[in-house]
């Protein structure tokens, strides 16, 4: 039976069919749906971990214990998990271990565009890269076989357009993979210098065998067509290239590390002009150059962002490739004859609890160190209340850095904002640093009781596990107190005046403080507002624009200020800021 599956669903299906027993992950676009879909299989123990490092360590432990195990994350998550990644390469596995990492070329939902393939090379771990959902499933299963055959973790590298594209997948049965015996083996699993030195040599030998595998494996294949143009590509880039120049000869790589030297050389010999087409860095291209081959790569194709058939075809045309073989459909397009099409950047949703926080921070004109999540949108106009956003957890620690560089006075005008899930992921360690090193930072934890941006995943403080079963609920207040913060308070971000007073008090304090701004995400099913929408009394409205400063998508300003009742969530924040009381709940207005 064939199903139309997301690449991420296909990875989950592959894990199921491969007999995987344990999966641990932290959500992150574009990887999140892998774990969500794995959680649907009762045969697989699945969990959300507090962060990617923990997730990978759980998977490593499960693999050492003899189970097939998997950890899933986005590209920047692999930075967090890099520590166990490098050493798990030394220990090798017992049951198969696969690390799924999803890159985000074009940065649809990420803070950088890093290329995870380098992790494979740096840690001497093989990397497989699928180009559609069927391959996503097949490669996942294959990754477990490679892992067990070569005693190595395997990275499955996904990317946004593979993770979030649907294509046909043949559904199979779960294979009966037994839990392997566990035997204590300190030479293999205790990585202290003497043992690690021995394992280091094994790693070098293993890599040689993997290279040989790459030469012969079916997942690297040559498609000979027109031999005047030869293209080496993998993953999404293969699809774009195939679309741009369908008649070319292709070396389609499914294993991008280690790369097959002989296969590449023989392909190069057979074609007139050799191109490497890849997104992000010159990973394949650099290798091809080390083989002394004449190749065209990023000197022609863009170094940043996503590729497309348009870009590839136009660049190949530029390089003198015969127009007849190129798909130049885009050249006939008619662009609309309009001066300017307004942008539509994402915005905090109507009813979003973060809006109240940013309204206050803007009013107080504070320096705000920010973090990763929906609330990063508070950086955009009109709320415009964020100074920095680096990575998960950096809000707390960098606020401390700001204070140590510019002194306590500066700290009196600075706050860190961080989401509840992000705080648990890696904000807590920063807070420990603040307390330990005599900082006086104010940290606002935006507690919307979920992992918002990635689509509502549970976390240790929601009180539920990944399958929606009740779980121990981490107490955020007690956690902050336990690390030594004496000033911890919980506030409702929709009580604007009270919230403002709280912020003023805490930034004035000469010691660390935490404000937990607690109100659940407006999109959560269990709290979805049943409030009636608000409306504007146009007779008393003086069009001062204060409500527009909230940046609520439901409030519009065509000839008059009005509220779109289908979008309004009934939170009432606009009514609170209206100086003439012209905004009232719908039923009163009518």
């Amino acid at each position, binding site marked *: 039976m064939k199903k*139309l599956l997301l690449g991420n669903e296909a990875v989950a299906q592959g894990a199921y069919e491969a007999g995987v027993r344990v999966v641990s992950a932290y959500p992150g676009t574009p990887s999140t749906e892998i774990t969500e879909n794995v959680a649907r299989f009762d045969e697989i123990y699945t969990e959300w971990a507090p962060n990617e490092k923990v997730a990978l360590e759980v998977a490593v432990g499960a693999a050492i214990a003899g189970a097939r195990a998997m950890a899933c994350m986005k590209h920047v998550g692999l930075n967090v998990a890099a520590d166990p990644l490098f050493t798990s390469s030394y220990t090798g596995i017992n049951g198969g271990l696969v690390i799924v990492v999803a890159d985000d070329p074009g940065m649809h939902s990420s803070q950088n565009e890093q290329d995870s393939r380098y992790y494979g090379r740096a840690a001497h771990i093989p990397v497989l890269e699928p180009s559609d959902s069927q391959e996503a499933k097949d490669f996942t299963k294959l990754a477990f076989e490679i892992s067990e055959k070569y005693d190595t973790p395997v990275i499955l590298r996904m990317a946004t357009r593979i993770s979030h594209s649907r294509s046909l997948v043949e559904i199979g049965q779960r294979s009966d993979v037994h839990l392997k015996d566990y035997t204590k083996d300190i030479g293999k699993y205790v990585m202290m210098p003497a043992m690690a030195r021995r394992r280091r040599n094994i790693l070098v030998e293993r890599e040689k065998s993997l290279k040989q595998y790459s030469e012969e494996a079916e997942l690297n294949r040559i498609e000979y067509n027109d031999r005047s143009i030869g293209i080496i590509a993998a993953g999404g880039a293969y699809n774009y290239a195939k679309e741009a120049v369908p008649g070319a000869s292709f070396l389609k790589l499914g294993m991008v590390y280690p790369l097959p030297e002989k296969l590449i050389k023989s392909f190069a010999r057979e074609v007139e002009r050799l191109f490497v087409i890849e997104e992000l860095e010159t990973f394949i291209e650099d290798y091809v150059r080390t083989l002394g081959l004449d190749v065209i790569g990023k000197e022609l194709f863009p170094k940043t962002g996503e590729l497309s058939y348009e870009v590839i075809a136009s660049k190949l045309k530029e390089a003198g490739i015969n127009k007849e073989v190129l798909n130049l459909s885009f050249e006939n397009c008619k662009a609309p004859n309009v001066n300017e099409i307004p942008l539509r950047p*994402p915005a905090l949703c109507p009813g979003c609890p973060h809006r109240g926080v940013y309204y206050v921070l803007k009013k107080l004109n504070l320096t705000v160190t920010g973090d990763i999540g929906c609330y990063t949108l508070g950086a955009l106009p009109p709320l415009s209340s964020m100074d920095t956003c680096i990575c998960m957890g950096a809000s707390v620690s960098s606020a401390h850095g700001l204070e140590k560089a510019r002194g306590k006075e500066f700290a009196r005008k600075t706050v860190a904002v961080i989401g509840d899930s992000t705080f648990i992921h890696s904000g807590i360690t920063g807070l420990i640093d603040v307390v330990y090193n005599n900082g006086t930072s104010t940290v606002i934890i935006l507690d919307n009781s979920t992992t918002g941006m990635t689509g509502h995943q549970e976390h240790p403080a929601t009180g539920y596990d990944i399958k929606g079963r009740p779980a121990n609920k981490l107490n955020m207040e007690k956690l902050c107190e336990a690390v030594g913060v004496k000033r911890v308070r919980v506030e409702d971000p929709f009580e604007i005046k009270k919230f403002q007073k709280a912020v003023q008090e805490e930034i004035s304090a000469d010691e660390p403080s935490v404000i937990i701004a607690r109100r659940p995400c407006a999109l959560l099913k269990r709290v979805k507002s049943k409030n009636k929408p608000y409306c504007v009394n146009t007779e008393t409205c003086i069009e001062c624009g204060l409500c527009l400063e909230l940046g609520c998508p439901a409030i519009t300003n065509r000839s008059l200020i009005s509220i779109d009742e289908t979008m309004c969530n009934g939170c009432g924040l606009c009514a609170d800021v209206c100086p003439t009381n012209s905004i009232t709940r719908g039923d009163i207005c009518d």
Partner: protein
Amino acid sequence: MTDTGILIVGVGGQGTLLSSRILGEVALRSGMDVKVSEVHGMAQRGGSVVTHVRFGKKVYCPLVGAGQADYVLAFEKLEALRWAGYLKKDGVIISNNQEIPPIPVTLGHQKYPENIRESLEKIATTYMVDAGRIASDCGSAKAVNVVLLGVLARKLNFEKELWTKVIEETVPPKTIEINIKAFNKGYGVV
């Protein structure tokens, strides 16, 4: 290159994902190779969203590139304008007539273009549909996506029964009746 490309465009939260899922499933059950590309994550939060659907004998790329769209199915007018340039020469625009001003417009930094219908008509055959009203009449303003899917369905060569079957299987059980009604209304518009 005889495959069909459809861009479903709108504002995050309008239900482009559900529509593309239904369309993809209908094409699949009609024996086609199908690829659908979705948008998740940050861009979904009220931003401009586009979902690509391609079907035919064999489809390589999940994206509908410039010059590859047979249809632009727009849930909002401005978004129709944004993506109209992706149409093939004889492509067709089906657009909701609703305006959702983006934040830069609300703040007065940019202007919502006037006469969008005329601009669209200069590019391609355009069907402007009052999908919001039709959806409300059917019982839910949120069914705009299915109304427009109905309009598109009339233009495509799939069996109508298959559409309704897939819709019934895809939408939340409580909303089946409203959605089928909305689909049928849309189907009868053009």
